[in-house]
């Protein structure tokens, strides 16, 4: 990190809130990385945002573009950048100088939750066990600067190379741990050679034939044309190992130079580093929004005078237009918490003598349950005047040591009541089912859920009364579950596991589709399966189509064959063409892409229009080929695209009688 004496000084008044937020976060069960806070001015903030939060990046016009857009956005919308936090150990967070203190506190609580997520989510371990991202990016920046400054190397060529690699930055195998170049190469090569020797043996050819036909040149070629047992998702790695650079002057494919390979590998590493954040956008943003709201709102981390400002801040963040990952994530985390707490309460109630899943709604007095669940008033509203009341709750719910300190006047109980409570105490204080907005949640449990929960009720553990059952409720269940989920899930599994009809209905999500007949986008479905499908489409594989290498020696001509794993949504063909041009730069020889497109003939479209229906498109296999000069596109027989067509998923959510 660069020296910033001025900004560090400005950060001093924020040291107390930062320390307190850390303590509170830990009390709430979070375990964040250490965070270094930096205060920066507006321009520096924009610069950091342009660089994705880091201070040093390799020279590239794209950062300039991001900066330009960020600035224009700021100008036109009065948009304000509240926070930027980078995934590193320790994490670094940047606060804007001009933020009001309430904003700063909100940002700090938000950042602490992000730092917890970075440290605990397993997808962040895929890149490296020991993280030093800033140092890595700085190293890359220096290397690339050196190459650009090298008089032997054309600066423009370096820039173009970077451009070409960046076009494929999402085409990695983000679900596998990142392996650096050399780790990967070693194992693979030996196997290839051994396999080839074995195959030649099997063919039982005479030595002469072997020597004449399968000469060294042939063997070299074979080695290069990597044999793929299954499609390679890490397109960048494949190109690094088998690609060539196209030399426009000689019009030939040349071996990649050292700088080309190195840059490709560095950018690939950066892709893997940023992948975790892209894989967990909804979860991570929702997680931070959830805990920010817990700390700021419910634990009154913002003083009374700051609260309005804070509320305004949060409204702006959560009410941005469109599908908002903060909002979706926060709602989903709250839903997970609620359902988990409900399950806990329901399971306890199902053990009460006489309560079964069938008669649950008729026999349980929900008002009564709600009263019994109510948070112990001593921890609900910690009374600084009657600290002795809390004595009885030590050690389970009240932190005895801090209670003594509070009595000695060392803790400002008025301001930080949470300091007296333990994790269990805080969990009870914030038990979600006791909140007003969730009052009806227990009652709304479905018969199906009840039946499922009832299966695990063992006969010998019955409660005689509802009172007994509720007294046994673990208030920490919800939070424990949240942390467990944040350890192991990514956006796709998160949505898949927890998005239910109840959630979709309560939060009013719907899908929309483009109608060819009306020429605009129309609401298609409010069914949760459909909403889930559409959301999964947006979050699976970074929301991008899956492209893998299918053959490195296509048609025995050393051509590259990419396959688009077609899931019912077709490619943007124009962009695919422009991307193929870039792939050509990295392969050096002709490149092919097989895909499936939807075609609607004009007559069908016209008939559909007259009947107010959607035309039924025909799915056709296509091979798009670029040879360095021109594109060709030819139809492929269905048998040739079967391997890229996925028939188990269909992301189309158009109802049959949609426009009727």
């Amino acid at each position, binding site marked *: 990190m660069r020296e910033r004496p001025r900004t560090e000084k400005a950060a001093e008044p924020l040291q107390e809130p930062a320390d307190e937020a850390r303590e509170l976060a830990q009390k709430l069960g979070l375990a964040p990385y250490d965070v270094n806070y930096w205060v920066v001015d507006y321009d520096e903030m924009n610069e950091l945002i*342009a660089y*994705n939060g880091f*201070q040093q990046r390799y*020279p*590239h*016009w*794209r*950062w*300039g*573009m*991001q*900066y*330009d857009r960020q600035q224009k956005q700021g100008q036109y919308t009065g948009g304000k950048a509240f926070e930027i936090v980078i995934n590193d150990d320790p994490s670094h967070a940047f606060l804007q100088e001009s933020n009001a203190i309430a904003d700063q506190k909100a940002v700090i609580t938000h950042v602490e939750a992000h730092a917890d997520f970075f440290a605990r989510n397993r997808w962040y371990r895929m890149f490296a066990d020991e993280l030093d991202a800033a140092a890595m990016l700085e190293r890359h*920046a220096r290397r690339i*600067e050196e190459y650009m400054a090298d008089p032997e190397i054309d600066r423009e060529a370096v820039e173009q190379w970077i*451009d070409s690699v*960046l*076009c494929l930055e*999402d085409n990695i195998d983000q679900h596998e741990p990142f392996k650096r170049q050399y780790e990967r190469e070693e194992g693979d090569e030996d196997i290839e050679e051994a396999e080839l020797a074995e195959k030649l043996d099997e063919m039982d050819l005479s030595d002469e034939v072997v020597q004449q036909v399968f000469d060294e040149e042939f063997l070299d070629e074979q080695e290069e044309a990597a044999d793929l047992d299954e499609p390679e998702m890490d397109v960048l790695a494949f190109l690094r190992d088998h690609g060539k650079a196209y030399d426009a002057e000689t019009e030939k494919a040349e071996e990649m130079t050292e700088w080309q390979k190195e840059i490709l590998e560095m950018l690939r590493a950066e892709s893997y580093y*940023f992948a975790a954040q*892209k894989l967990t*956008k*909804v979860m991570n943003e929702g997680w931070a929004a959830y805990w920010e709201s817990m700390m700021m709102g419910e634990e009154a981390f913002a003083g009374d005078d700051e609260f309005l400002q804070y509320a305004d801040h949060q409204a702006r963040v959560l009410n941005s237009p*469109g*599908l*908002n990952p903060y909002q979706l994530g926060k709602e989903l985390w709250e839903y997970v918490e609620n359902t988990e707490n409900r399950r806990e309460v329901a399971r306890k109630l199902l053990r009460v003598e006489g309560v079964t899943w069938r008669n649950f709604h008729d026999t349980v007095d929900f008002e009564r349950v709600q009263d019994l669940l109510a948070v112990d008033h001593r921890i609900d509203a910690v009374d600084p005047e009657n600290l002795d009341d809390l004595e009885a709750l030590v050690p389970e719910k009240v932190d005895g040591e801090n209670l003594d300190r509070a009595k000695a006047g060392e803790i400002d109980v008025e301001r930080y009541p949470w300091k007296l409570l333990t994790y269990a105490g805080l969990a009870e204080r914030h038990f979600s089912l006791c909140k007003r907005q969730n009052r009806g949640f227990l009652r709304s449990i479905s018969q199906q859920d009840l039946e499922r929960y009832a299966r695990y009720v063992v006969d010998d553990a019955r409660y005689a009364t509802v009172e007994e059952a509720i007294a046994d409720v673990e208030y920490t269940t919800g939070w424990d579950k949240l942390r467990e989920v944040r350890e192991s899930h990514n956006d796709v599994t998160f949505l898949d596991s927890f998005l239910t009809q109840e959630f979709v209905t309560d*939060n*009013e*999500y*719907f*899908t*929309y*589709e*483009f109608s060819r007949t009306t020429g605009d*986008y*129309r*609401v298609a479905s409010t069914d949760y399966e459909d909403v889930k499908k*559409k*959301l999964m*489409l*947006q*979050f699976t594989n970074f*929301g*991008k189509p899956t492209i893998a290498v299918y053959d490195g020696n296509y048609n025995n001509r050393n051509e590259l064959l990419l396959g*688009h794993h077609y899931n019912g*949504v077709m*490619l*943007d063909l*124009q*962009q*695919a063409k*422009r*991307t193929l041009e*870039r792939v050509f730069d990295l392969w050096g020889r002709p490149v092919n892409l097989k895909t499936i497109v939807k075609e609607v003939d004009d007559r069908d479209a016209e008939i559909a229009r007259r009947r107010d229906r959607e035309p039924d498109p025909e799915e056709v296999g296509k091979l798009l080929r670029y040879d360095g000069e021109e594109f060709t596109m030819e139809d492929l027989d269905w048998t040739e695209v079967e391997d890229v067509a996925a028939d188990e998923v269909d*992301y*189309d*959510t158009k*109802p049959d009688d*949609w*426009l009727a």
Partner: protein
Amino acid sequence: MGLREDLERYREVGEAKREDLADFIQYGDLGQSLPDEIKVPIKIVDLPEFAYDQRDQGGVGQGDPDVGDPVGEPQPQPGDGDEDGDEPGEEGGEHDYYEMDPEEFAEELDDELGLDLEPKGKEVVEEKEGDFTDMTRTGPDSTLDFERMFKEGLKRKLAMDFDPDFLKEVLKIDGWGPDRAFQWARDNAINVSKPWLEETYDEIPDDERTEWRSIEEVEENVTRRSAAQKIREDGVRNVPFRTEDERYRYPEIVEEREKNVVVVNIRDVSGSMREKKRELVERTFTPLDWYLTGKYDNAEFVYIAHDAEAWEVEREDFFGIRSGGGTKISSAYELTAHVLDERYPWSDWNRYVFAAGDSENSRNDTGENVIPLMEEIPANLHAYVETQPDGKAINATHAEEVDDYFGDSSEVAVSYVNSPEDVTEAIYEILSTEAES
């Protein structure tokens, strides 16, 4: 940070990817631009990637509509790029523009066409009140430069002030007394009066009057404070204000040379001017307007439409008008003469008069009326742009007649635009005519 450089590179990349200016003028969509902001389409700046077909992808929204309700344009979706800035948003390839102001446009066009037009003609001299930086000795109280007066006073005080403590010691030199001390003060440029020395000497008790043996001894033992030091230590008291130090601020007179230009655009809107011809006129005139706007400090435009009669119109209507009547080009020049005389005197304004049409005119009108009017109306440049996309009509001789009459004059240009390819050539022809002179 290297970000400045990245930003510059981005601008360069953006500029490199903008449509070639000549192509843009000839074939591009001029309609996206405003008079003072030229939007040249950028081919595509952002890097491509494998992406879903946006329409086929659909999306998710939040709210409570019914199935089948239109949702408007798709809402921004995560992954489209957002607050984390991990990816810039797609702003839609076809809607990206490289924006340039008329100055840049003029510069670029100079580069591209090898032009070098220096705005000339009238340099209008204007007197303006500049900053209040001049000084006079009298003036209203509110313009009194107190700061200056204070400084002058202080200077005077510094010059006049002396260190009384030190002089007192000087008076104590054995055998000196006021006379000798006064002489010494004079020699050392210390502004002390003789009466002050005498008075002070009187106050010194006798036994102290022989305290020091020599001036050297005093200088060695007594710290002498300069006036500045004294002011710093004791503060400023009694700064002497004198009338002669009073200065009143007065606005500086700035002679500003403004380069004003008025461009008269004349267009034949008669029946024979069909769609294609109109478009060619627009393609020629619009870049000329931008160019001149960029070259001059202040540009105004007059739009005159004519058939057999002429009338003034607004810019937005100018290229769209069609009328049925015949053609009499001189009507437009009469109106031009009138408008220019009334509103844009030749003494204050550079004038450009650009006319366009298909060269059809009423019999004898060109020779008898138009040419004399063109000679009579003083202007930096008169130009006629002939558009004949479908080949020449026999009676369409206006351009030729004008061309023949004026020949190589640097004040009159005639050019022929029969297809979009001719546009840049015509623009060059027109602008270089004046530049050559």
